[in-house]
């Protein structure tokens, strides 16, 4: 498979994870017996999407990233790798654990317990925030390659 397709699949599942976490957050704000199954279902989708995004990203990072890294480091934006890629590749480990934890937290008595709801709200909010950071860092890394190629 073309490595650009692999990279785009990684972004696709990452964004799915991000949108799903926002869905869980909003649905939990308005929780009732009627949407409980949906909250738990989407929480599971968030976890699965993150795992898929993580495996695809790991494969791409290990197999295809080295040439891009070399290009970035020779270009005008070496920080795109030295700061943003290095930080991103480790932040996403926490994001994977958070996304895995979300369906566990969503098993609580959300409709009747403010405490259980607060755990899900904070967890889904953190997943959304970290996913947004990871997505933004990915854009900076891509720009690092682009500006390096432009000055050649």
């Amino acid at each position, binding site marked *: 498979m073309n490595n650009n397709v692999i990279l785009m699949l990684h972004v696709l599942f990452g964004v799915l994870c991000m949108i799903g976490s926002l869905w869980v957050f909003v649905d939990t704000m308005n929780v009732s017996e009627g949407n409980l199954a949906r909250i738990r279902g989407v929480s599971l989708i968030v976890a699965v999407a993150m795992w898929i995004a993580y495996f695809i990203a790991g494969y791409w990072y290990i197999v295809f990233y080295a040439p891009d890294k070399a290009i970035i480091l020779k270009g005008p934006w070496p920080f795109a790798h030295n700061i943003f890629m290095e*930080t991103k590749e*480790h932040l996403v480990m*926490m994001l994977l654990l958070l996304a895995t934890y979300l369906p566990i937290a969503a098993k609580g008595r959300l409709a009747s317990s403010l*405490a259980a709801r607060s755990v899900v709200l904070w967890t889904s909010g953190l997943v959304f925030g970290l996913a947004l950071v990871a997505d933004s860092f990915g854009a900076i890394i891509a720009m690092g390659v682009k500006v390096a190629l432009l000055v050649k």
Partner: protein
Amino acid sequence: MENAIKNPGEDGVSNFTVSFGISLAVASVASALLVVAKERDRALMASMKSATGHHWSTHSLFALALFLVVGFALSRLNGGQGVRMTAGALVKTVVGGIVVGSLIIGGYYLLLD
């Protein structure tokens, strides 16, 4: 009908939610500290590379294994009732673990590397 997993507490937060919330915080901070350790110690970085072929793969397995082992271990405490903690304290633990872990990782690459 809600079906909270394993020993839901009086506040509706289950044993697994508390146990894995704590393990999430522990694994996040430990993973961040491992980032600093492997970047500072070439022997550690080399051993992590040789363990799976890439330091990132080994690091991922470490974080995941710690999350699962600590989570299941905590859920078995108190005769299977798990750790007793209020939801407020749990939220502070989870958010604190993620924030501290993120600051360690971001701070290291931004300021020290």
